[in-house]
């Protein structure tokens, strides 16, 4: 019984597919006769259908050749081979993949399927989808524009044929696959398992009816550059930008204006985009979201009529949008439902964290008692407004806050030069001061008052001093120095020490850092490289595991976790810090430059970062280190530069200064 039922089920799927073939007349004309006789009918029919489909578009597939330009772009050796383009309007416009022009050629030549040639120029680029629009100088008559497959007819599992015109000028090269997925790369691309590579980037992905699903491009969900995703060539993961989407923006591109990805300018709370709701951590000042009135804490629930449940839904809904587009957004503020109309922007200026200049006491008397001022930074807005240690912070304007995190958010939502009405209490009397926020400081203050009044334990607790951090499945060693007066009542900062090659000594660790650890409530964590002579970039994962282990076992102050690397250790330090922004709040590197090709994002209200760089002014690296510092400042990171008094590692005084720099990282 089950067998007789099964066979029709399987066949039905195939028949359904075949039925779609039969709707097209050419199939009946060319293939139906062969079907009748050949023992291999299906294969023959399929093959004929595919060849007919390709033939249907081949008059729109052009060959592109370039002259001049770069030999190499980054690590990618630029190909000198011909590439492919697709006719998009009969008056001489061609689209192609931006990958085909990364070498910035001096001249572009297009060969039409009829063998005629024309010079071409780039009119505009779609920088969100990495598509380029070209205009032929002399199209020599009307061109053949292909038909786009409507989005609702693109189904996963349907045949998808990748077509290029690179191997030969007079014929196309084709690769057969299926549609693997739709709405990939934040809704921008169709995915296929046909072999997509420089041999067909810029060419069409064709459906079995000879319509165009999309234009083939390399793409990556992580990065948005011309070459991103090119490493996946021929892997069975290929992408095409739907032709319908390109037609939709064609008129805009024809005007010569580049298109950019549309940005709201918000950061979302939480670390799990797949699970967390889209609650704003911040609407960064000056961005479209902030201008429209969105505030931190608002929960986005709808965008252009699409329900937003999770952070990922928002990314998916906004990923397809261009700068300049207006989106209708619905957000919940508490119980209130608010409507917004927001014009997306193409770029968000680097975020600059403002500063009040107050260091809070680290241990509050009770959970909801007011935050007590531990110290006031010199020349800061707080000092100018007359705040003193011992004052209690009440709120800003009408609003009251007691939690440190709320204070952080309140300050971070503003920008330098914004004025706030700061309410505080001194000896039980409430006062108000108008304070103009400033930029983050770059100096190191002198000694500050104690951060808490917790009495140290009478005896050194167990598990303090030099302790070994043992991780299962990790061969490398790791030691930490935990101050002997450690108590779980006091949050401790963590210094992730990445030593210069050959410098790893347990005794040195204690000798150099013991005093600073005890005075400033710090734990120094020193993972050891697997090879004493070098750090391997992949060891960032091991370092992260050691840090997570310390965070689990000790009371760690999340505002004072820094990575501190010396020479090659600092190189790994930069990698570690920028790859682990969720936990690292500071970088303090000595005598080292930023590794090339490091992907770094600007400062962020949620994942704030301060940078300390010690260098020797006679070092060969001094010039490049200074250039690094300037770049960091452009990205609005506060950078503290320290000229070392001697070669090698920091002196005892310099270590104390560094410890004091760390001591100010939880400033408001």
């Amino acid at each position: 019984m089950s067998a007789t039922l099964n066979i029709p089920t399987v066949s039905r799927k195939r028949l359904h597919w075949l039925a779609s073939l039969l709707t097209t007349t050419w199939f009946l004309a060319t293939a139906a006769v062969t079907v009748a006789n050949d023992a291999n009918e299906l294969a023959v029919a399929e093959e004929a259908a595919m060849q007919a489909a390709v033939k249907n578009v081949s008059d729109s597939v052009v060959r592109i050749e370039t002259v001049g330009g770069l030999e190499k772009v980054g690590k990618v050796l630029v190909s000198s081979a011909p590439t492919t383009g697709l006719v998009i309007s009969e008056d001489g416009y061609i689209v192609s993949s931006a990958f085909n022009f990364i070498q910035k050629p001096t001249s572009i030549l297009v060969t039409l399927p009829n063998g005629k040639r024309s010079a071409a120029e780039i009119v505009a680029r779609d920088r969100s989808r990495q598509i380029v629009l070209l205009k032929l100088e002399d199209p020599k008559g009307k061109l053949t524009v292909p038909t786009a497959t409507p989005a609702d007819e693109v189904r996963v599992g349907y045949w998808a044929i990748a077509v290029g015109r690179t191997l030969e000028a007079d014929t196309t090269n084709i690769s057969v696959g299926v549609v693997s997925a739709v709405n990939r790369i934040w809704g921008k691309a169709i995915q296929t398992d046909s072999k997509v590579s420089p041999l067909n980037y810029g060419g069409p992905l064709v459906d079995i009816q000879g319509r165009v699903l999309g234009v083939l491009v390399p793409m990556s969900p992580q990065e948005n550059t011309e070459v991103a995703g090119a490493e996946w060539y021929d892997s069975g993961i290929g992408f095409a930008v739907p032709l319908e989407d390109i037609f939709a923006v064609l008129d805009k591109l024809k005007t010569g204006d580049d298109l950019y990805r549309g940005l709201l300018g918000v950061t979302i709370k939480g670390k799990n985009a797949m699970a967390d709701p889209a609650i704003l951590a911040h609407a960064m000042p000056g961005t479209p979201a902030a201008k429209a009135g969105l505030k931190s804490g608002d929960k986005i629930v709808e965008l252009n009529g699409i329900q937003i449940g999770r952070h990922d839904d928002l990314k998916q809904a906004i990923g397809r949008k261009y700068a300049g587009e207006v989106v209708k957004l619905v957000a919940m503020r508490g119980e209130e439902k608010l409507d917004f109309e927001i014009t997306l922007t193409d770029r968000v200026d680097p975020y600059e964290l403002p500063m009040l200049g107050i260091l809070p006491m680290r241990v509050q008397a009770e959970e909801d008692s007011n935050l007590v001022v531990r110290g006031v930074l010199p020349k800061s807005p707080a000092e100018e407004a007359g705040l003193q240690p011992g004052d209690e912070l009440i709120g800003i304007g009408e609003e009251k806050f007691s939690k440190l995190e709320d204070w952080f958010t309140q300050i971070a939502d503003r920008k330098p030069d914004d004025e706030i009405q700061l309410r505080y209490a001194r000896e039980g009397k409430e006062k108000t001061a108008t304070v103009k926020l400033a930029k983050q400081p770059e100096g190191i203050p002198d000694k500050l008052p104690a951060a808490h009044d917790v009495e140290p334990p009478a005896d050194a607790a167990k598990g303090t001093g030099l302790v070994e951090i043992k991780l299962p499945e990790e061969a490398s060693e790791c030691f930490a120095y935990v101050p002997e007066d450690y108590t779980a009542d006091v949050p401790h900062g963590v210094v992730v020490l990445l030593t210069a090659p050959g410098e790893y000594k347990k005794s040195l660790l204690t000798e150099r850092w013991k005093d600073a650890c005890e005075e400033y409530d710090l734990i120094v964590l020193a993972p050891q490289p697997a090879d004493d002579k070098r750090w391997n970039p992949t060891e960032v994962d091991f370092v992260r595991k050691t840090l997570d282990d310390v965070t689990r076992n000790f009371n760690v102050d999340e505002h004072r976790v820094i990575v501190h690397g010396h020479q090659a250790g600092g190189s790994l330090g930069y990698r570690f810090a920028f790859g682990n922004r969720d936990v690292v709040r500071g970088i303090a590197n000595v005598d080292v430059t930023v590794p090339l090709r490091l992907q770094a994002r600007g400062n962020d209200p949620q994942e704030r970062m301060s940078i300390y760089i010690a260098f020797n002014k006679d070092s060969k690296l001094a010039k490049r280190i200074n250039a690094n510092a300037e770049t960091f400042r452009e990205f609005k990171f506060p950078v503290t530069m320290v000229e070392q008094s001697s070669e090698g590692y920091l002196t005892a005084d310099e270590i104390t200064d560094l410890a004091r720099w760390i001591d100010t990282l939880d400033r408001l």
Partner: protein
Amino acid sequence: MTTINQNRPDFFRSCAIGVLIATCCMANAALHADTVSDAQEKIVKIYGAGGIRGLESYQSGFLISAEGHVLTSFSYVLDTDDVIVTLDDGRDFTAKMIGIDPRLELAVLKIEATKLPHFDVTKSVQLNSGSRILAFSNLFGIASGNEPASVMHGSVMAISKLSARRGNFQIPYQGKVYIVDAITNNPGAAGGALTNLKGDLAAILGKELRSADANVWINYALPIEEIRESVQAMQAGKTLPDESEQADASLAKSPWTIGQTGILFVPDVLPKTPPFVEAVNDGSVAAGAGIQSDDLVMYIGTTLIRSFRDLAANLKKIEDQDDLQITVLRNQKLIPLTLEPAGLSRKKIGP
């Protein structure tokens, strides 16, 4: 079958065609299985030199006669007196190399056996772009003993001239090949067979190569009709001459020179200096043809010129007695121009 048509009558314009196609769908799977096992019997595993990192000591081949002739790829694997051929049924033989073609990078081996299943190289099918294919080889040396060779399926991506390199070296054969869209050319796959869906021999799988221009790995196979003559010669025990070092026949005996044209180009200072015309000598052939300063030379004949060096290399292919067809780019327009040889009138004088 009729039940389906009743349930979903909208599927078909014609009931009859529907039944016909549906029946063949089910027949299809069985047909493939027979095709595959028939072809697999003709594939051999070859073991020889290598084994050092990055150099596998195995490759593939296939039988081309009932008496044990094996066609395979000519490579370092065969560079030993002790080449072992393992048949599909698991029998091992020490093979003798009886012929080599260095240009096609093919070799014919002979084992002492009879009544073997084999492909007939005197017959072969021609494939077209889009033809669906099966590729048989022992890629990655996965099969051993009597395990059958691996089979992959795909389509012919294009029929094209091979322009590929191994490391920095251009490979000698630059003739017609099938480029396929399956990742067939893996370690150990060279020498395997490419067939149509019926298992008819079409081509022999090539080595792992990168395209010379596009810098991507390409998967290709040499069509049997391109190599038939050579295979038959090798089978007869001939080793063919290595033509790869012979003079390039495309070069002219007395070529055009840049001096003869009367064009002065901008200095060649970059790896890819665009061939911009700096000036044209008065009264020169270039001036006569209408070449102007600031023109960019785009084509010589139909060959795209990417740089000054490219231009110099391509001039060498044109006899100085022939017209030189140059297409220049001027104000974004392609302008074809003809340079007539200066000595033409003199050469025309004669008895």
